[in-house]
Each structure stands twice: as C-alpha cells, then as structure tokens.
C-alpha cells in the first residue's frame, strides 16, 4: 500500500503541470517516508516511550523524536512553497509549469 501511494505521488510529481499539485505530491512522499520510519520503531502491544514504573515494553523513541523534526521541516517547506506559488500567480498570472518560462 505504501509503495503504491509512493509511486502515485512520484508519477504526479513528474506529470502534473500545476505547481500546487507538485508540492502536494512532494508532501505525500515526505509523509510516506515519515510513516515508514515510525514503523521501524513499532512493537506489537508496546507502550508509549514515557518510562514509568511497571512499563516493560515500549516502542523505540528514537524514530518518533527524529520524525517530529522532519515533520516541522516539512511544514516549513510546504508553507514557504505555497506562499511563493501565490506570489508567482500574482506576478505571472499562472502556476502552470508549461506556461512558465525561465527566459
């Protein structure tokens, strides 16, 4: 399932002409990567990694801590990208890559 969604997102990233859709596809790819990392720390019937008395089995806290940072970076990226796309729409009147020329 993860691979299927990943391939759809990559396909969308390559084929889509709309910059907003490209950013959405990138966001999906990033979410899949983050989910995959969280899965590496998952254990069946384990507790949250807040270590108190009586808790013997807990999930690996490392991926969770690291992926929180990655999520924050992702949010920054998305907000910045969307802000620039809005500015580009105002300046050029389009967000379609086939209509936007560098020169």
């Amino acid at each position, binding site marked *: 399932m993860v691979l299927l969604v990943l391939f759809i997102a990559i396909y969308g990233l390559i084929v889509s002409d709309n910059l907003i859709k490209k950013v959405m596809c990138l966001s999906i790819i990033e979410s899949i990567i983050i989910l995959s990392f969280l899965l590496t720390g998952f254990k069946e019937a384990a507790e949250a990694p807040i270590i108190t008395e009586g808790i013997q089995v807990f999930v690996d806290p490392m991926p969770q801590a690291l992926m929180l940072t990655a999520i924050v970076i992702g949010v920054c990226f998305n907000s910045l990208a969307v802000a620039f796309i809005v500015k580009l729409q105002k*300046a050029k009147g389009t967000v379609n890559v*086939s209509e936007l020329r560098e020169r």
Partner: protein
Amino acid sequence: MLVSFENVRYLLIAFPLIPLVTIILSVLINYISKKDISPVSLIVNNLLQLVVGLLLVARFIDYEGVHIESITQWQYSIIFVFDRIKVYFLIAFLLPLLFSLFHTKSLQKLESRLIFLFYLSGCSGLIVTGDIFNFYIFYEVMIMSAYILVAINGNYYASIKYMLFGAISSALLLAGIILLYASGAYFSFTFVQEIGELSLYNIKFVLLLFCTAFFIKGAFFPVSSWVATCHSATNNITSSFLSAFTIFTGIYGLYYFVLQPAMLLEYEQIFLVVKIFSMITMLLPALILYFEPEFKRCIAGSTVYSIGFIGLMMSYRLFDLAFTYMAIHACYKPLMFLLHDYVDIKGNAIRANKRTLAIYMVCILFTAGFFPSLIYFIKYNLLQDYAGLTILTQISMMLILSSFLKFRFKIIRFRASNVFYITILCIILLIYFLFPFRFVMPDYKFILDAGIILFAIFLSGKLYQKWHKLSALDTKFIFKTLNVEIFYVVILLVSQLVILRLVF
C-alpha cells in the same frame, strides 16, 4: 598551537551559535530602541565567525585523527566531529564570508539580513555537525534561508524550482537515513566503523539513496539544470555563497556518507558511478554553457563543470587534490559574482574598469583551468597519473573558456573600493603560497594548451555567431520543462540501480 583541544569544544559550539545570537540581539535592539543595527551586527558576526573559523583551521590543518565532541554525556547527545577534510569545507565557507564583508550593502532590508544570518548559521552547523540527522537539519536551515534569499528579489519561479529539487534530494536522504537505522546503525559521521557488521544488501541501497540525494544537492548532470537558474536569480552576495559553499555540501555528503563507507566495504561500483556521472558533468554542462547568452548564468553554470572535475578526482580517490580544488574554487567564484556589482552589461558587452576586468580575466583562467591558475597545476597532477582523461579535460576546458570569451569586455571608468582589490590580491597570493601540490609544468603540453586557447578564441568569435540559433540550449532543448527536469531524477536513480547491479 593557538588552541588546545579543551578549547576546541567551545569553538565548535560557538561557530553555529554566533549568527543565532546576532539575530536575537538585532531583533531585540530593533524592538526596544527602534534602531536597525543589523548592518553593523552582520559585519561583526562575519568577523567573529572568521576568527573562530581561522582558529579551527589552525588547529586541524595538520591533524590526522577524527576529533569528536559530545555536548552532554547522554548516549544520544548532539555530537560535533572535526577532522582535516572538514578544514577544506571550512575554508570554502570562510573565503566568501571574508569577501562578503565588502558587499553587505547588497542586503538592503532588515529581513534579508536576518535571513542571511540564519543561512550562515545553517552553513556553520553543517560544517561542525557530527551525525547525519543533524546534517539534514542544518542543511534544511541553510537551504530554507537560501530559498527565501533567492525569492527576495522577486524570482519566485527560480526559488520554487530550487525548492522542488531540494525537497526531492532531502526526501531521498531521509529515506536513506531510515534504511540505515532499520539496518541497525546510528547516524554518526563515524558510522563507517560499525558498517562492517550490517547487512551488505541493505547498505548498498542506503549508499544508492545517499548517492542520488548528494548528486542532486551537488548538481551532477542530468540534475544540474537548477544551478544556473537559482544561483543567478539572487543578489551577488548570496550567489557567491551558494556557488562557493552550498552546492559543495553535495560533495561533502558524498565523501562522508557514500565514498568513505564504500571504501571500507571495498564496494568499487560506487566509485564507477561517481566516475561516469562526473565525466558527463564535466562535458555536457560545459557545452550548454557555450550556448548560454547571459553572463551571470554563465558564472553560475560554470560551477557544475567544477563539480564534475572534483567528482572525477574523488572517484580516483585523490581526495586532497579534489578538496584543494574546491577551496580554490571558493576563492575565485565569489569574486566573479561580487564583481558583478561593478559591471555594466549591455547585450553581449561587459563594461567595467581596468582592475575589475583584470580580475575577471584571472578568474576565467581559474574557471577553465589554464596556466598560470592553480587549477592548471591540479589538473596536471591528475593527468600525470591518468593520461587517458586528457582529451575529455581539454575539450571541457576549451568549451568553458570560449563560453566566457564570447562576451565582449570593454574598459570604462568606474570607482571602486581599493581595500577590496588589495584583499583580493592578498588572498590570491596567499593561496599560491599555501598550494600543497607540485607545480607540474609539462613542456610539450604548453603547445597543446596554447592551441586549445586559440581554438577557444575561434569558437567564441564568428563560429558562435553562426550557431546563434542554438543559444540557450538548455532551456530550449535539454531541460525544456520542469517536468522533464524532475524526470531526470528518476533516470539518475534507475541508471545507478543498473550500474550498481542492484536490479536486472
């Protein structure tokens, strides 16, 4: 020694913190007294970072080991790592920092100066960091600031293009980090020590993902189209940093996270991949550059050729030679961008004063790698051992030289700061004095080089006028739309899978 190892700890922590403290102070003083002190604080920050950086260079330039500093005693504490190779990257950061002291006026608003300080903090953190996850975080701090600095002049398309390529490479890097963690390794720069115990099959995929990510960050062909667009779209001070340091983080990552583990595993195919893509990166972007009609895009695009040359030397394991090239590149490339402030461009004519044009000529010789530039001596240090590369190198050099000579340079009267020119002269003399390799001068090749220069002049003259229809070859044909450019990432990934024999 100027600094003892006990004090190195404070230098390593202070280096990325100085710009952050400067930001806080500038904002606080602006809020309290309504005075904008950021022009002064930016200069003070640059001076402080120069001092700390030079102390680190002095400490580590002849140090053979790997110095590891942990902030706390905790197992997962943030660690800083420094070794002799990082000195080269530090120099590549310090040189544009020194030149930028004379051009801080390019950053006109408080906001742009603060973003620039964030950028400097990201760069500094990237140099001293000791694990790959913090490398990723500092890289993002640096690159997010760079996106804003590119967009600040109104070049939103260039910034978005930069963002797309940056995000794709970061996604690949993150995927590699996950696979590495899932294979049982931690993210330290010294993870190569543990690598022998991991599953070789998994590690091959980790190296593949890292290699692709760093190829994009380092702008290896065919994922190099963004360089000319993005590096030329911003103010000259940012352009100089982007082309002297930021793009070389790809080389930095390639060395630490791909080639070092590959050497330990004796995984030769990775070197073959780097060699093949470096050769293409030397030749094709040089050809594209020949048809490039804009001067600033030419300066930006020529960095890709240098990346190819450095990659080639790395694929032959000549790391010191490669990183010396990078440090010298960090001297002349920022100058080419910063002197752009003193230049008047009308069509194909570049008009500037005598001193500026003289420095441009020296920088062009360095870029193409002709005598008496230091790149010439680096090139012959490589060609002495690997003569088979001669034709490829000479063709690329000729194309690079003719791509600059096609512009018509004219002298005009224009006043500029003498201190800046004196600093440039001192730095150029200093790097000649400190050059660590042999000054190889094979006699018969002088004639060959003279022939190449003459042919380059011929190429840049009437012949270029005839081929005018091919002008802007990259955006008209090779990288026609953004979708095609992104598709090249898939081609890069698949071709590596085939060369590394991980599929088929």
